[in-house]
């Protein structure tokens, strides 16, 4: 029983980070109707940026989050203006190829700049654990989970309570109607992409204390993000939270009780099943 609880809790904690990666992708898809194939590369970029800040300036990853957030929004906005906006009206395979290209450029520049060898940081809390009722919680993962919750609440507040959040939701629901209401949908898209990239980069920062980082790690997270968003419904930001938790728990339980070698396959199988049987996601109607 304790083992089961342990496996379950580990799955939930991991799922929290997956959710954060997935929410960004879902927000971008909801507002812009494009699938960001470079999403995982922005996670990798966040990891390397935090690594650099830690190694050269001694800034703790958790303290770097505000910086990474601002940097992520700025970078996302620039990428959107420079690469996505010009092709936004083109057929969807065009935006897929464009983001694949952006992802390749990022991962290869990282390879160029940091080399292919795995790197990690060691902080005083990297191996700290908390024990509650016989269940061991990884310190950094628990902190990540709390920060993820805070970030999600913050995003929810921005989307529902602020003018720019309403503009983004309006753009997601109906672009033409939003424009008729005087909303600058171009700015809404730029910000949505910026926020999505920032969410990905922050997840990278949160993962740095517990993971090795290599320049090609982005592909893994792109796939995870796809699974999360499809489980939760493409464009459904709240659904992505559920999707992330389901993915984390499925992987954790599957790896513990079925086969650890197929850890990554469980999520993909669930992904295919949902794609074919319930394309709108597990939680019904799409909603940003």
């Amino acid at each position: 029983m304790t083992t089961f609880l342990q496996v379950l809790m580990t799955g939930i904690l991991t799922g929290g980070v997956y959710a954060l990666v997935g929410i960004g992708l879902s927000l971008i898809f909801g507002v812009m109707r494009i699938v960001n194939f470079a999403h995982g590369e922005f996670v990798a970029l966040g990891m390397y940026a935090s690594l650099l800040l830690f190694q050269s300036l001694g800034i703790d990853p958790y303290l770097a989050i505000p910086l990474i957030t601002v940097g992520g929004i700025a970078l996302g906005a620039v990428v959107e203006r420079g690469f996505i906006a010009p092709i936004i009206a083109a057929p969807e395979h065009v935006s897929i190829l464009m983001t694949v290209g952006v992802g390749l450029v990022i991962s290869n520049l990282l390879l160029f700049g940091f080399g292919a060898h795995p790197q990690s940081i060691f902080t005083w809390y990297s191996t700290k654990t908390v024990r509650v009722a016989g269940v061991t919680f990884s310190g950094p993962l628990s902190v990540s989970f709390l920060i993820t919750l805070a970030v999600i609440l913050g995003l929810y507040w921005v989307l529902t309570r602020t003018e720019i959040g309403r503009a983004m939701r309006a753009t997601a629901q109906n672009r033409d109607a939003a424009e008729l209401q005087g909303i600058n949908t171009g700015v809404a898209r730029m910000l949505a992409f910026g926020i999505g990239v920032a969410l990905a980069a922050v997840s990278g920062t949160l993962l740095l204390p517990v993971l090795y980082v290599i320049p090609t790690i982005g592909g893994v997270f792109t796939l995870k993000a796809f699974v999360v968003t499809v489980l939760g419904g493409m464009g459904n930001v709240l659904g992505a939270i559920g999707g992330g938790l389901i993915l984390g728990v499925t992987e954790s339980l599957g790896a513990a009780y079925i086969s650890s070698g197929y850890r990554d396959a469980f999520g993909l199988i669930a992904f295919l099943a949902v794609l074919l049987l319930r394309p709108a996601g597990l939680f019904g109607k799409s909603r940003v």
Partner: protein
Amino acid sequence: MRDRLKTLAWLGAVLVAFTLYPWAFPTKLNLGVVIVLFAGMATAWDVLGGWAGQLSLGHAALVGIGGYTLALLSLRAGVPPWWGLLAGMALTGAVAAVWGWIVFRLRGPYFVLSTIAVAEILRLVAINWKDLTGGAEGLFLRELPRPFGLDLFNRTVEFYLVLAYLGVALLVAWWLSWSRFGYSLQAIREDQDSAMAMGINPTRTKILAFMVSAALTAMGGSLYAIYLSFFEPHIVLDIGLSVELALIAYIGGAGTVFGPTIGAVVLLAAGDLFRNYFQQANLLIYGILIILVVRFAPEGMVGGWHALVRRLVRPAPGVPVEVRGERP
């Protein structure tokens, strides 16, 4: 009809030009085999991705099935490679029929995502089913029979083998450029609903295209297995390979007879040229080129070239030369 024969003549010329490669660059035979092989596989990808417009990022699965079928039949049952190659083609054709039947109800990004998922699941199976596939350590083709006394591990022999394969792939692409089937695929690509209204069954046509594309890709995968002689899931089943095939075809010119071949020559030669500067980062050029192509020449190098020629040869639009004389 004249266009058709002209393309066929070009096709012959391209193949003849390639036959000279081993004499021209005897020290670069490895690169030559890879260029021609990838040209063939990208042409095979293009049957589905370009002509039918169904972007697939899972074709590595088909390369892998082709390669593994040949290698496993040879290692475990002593089946000669040519039968292994045909078995691999038949198997991938069947796999594509089922795979297509399942995923072609999805459109757009959902279809692309499903191809990635299926290919990734296959890669995980290949890594974990150690008894069958040798797992992550891979397989080693130690020896192969010698048909007509030809050593299949000799690079020159391999070069002409993959050239024959490229010939087959190009003939299929050429057939698509004028046949009814080819036009059905293009109709589906341009507008699936209108194609349906014209009496084309989109699902059946797409499945057929997938089967052709899959069997051709598997043929390349079998030859790739012989060329590598030692291969592992990380090489032949990786999503990186899927992306590479798609980008080669797209940068060269998707849905054209020679586009994928041009893409393979340019990208792989450039990759070889810059290898010393960029080391492992040689996919950088793929990224930069696909961004440029998508942004400025959506029809690839072939389309971009045609547009350039048109602009240079014909007067600029907006100056209707002929009309001017007719006005009173």
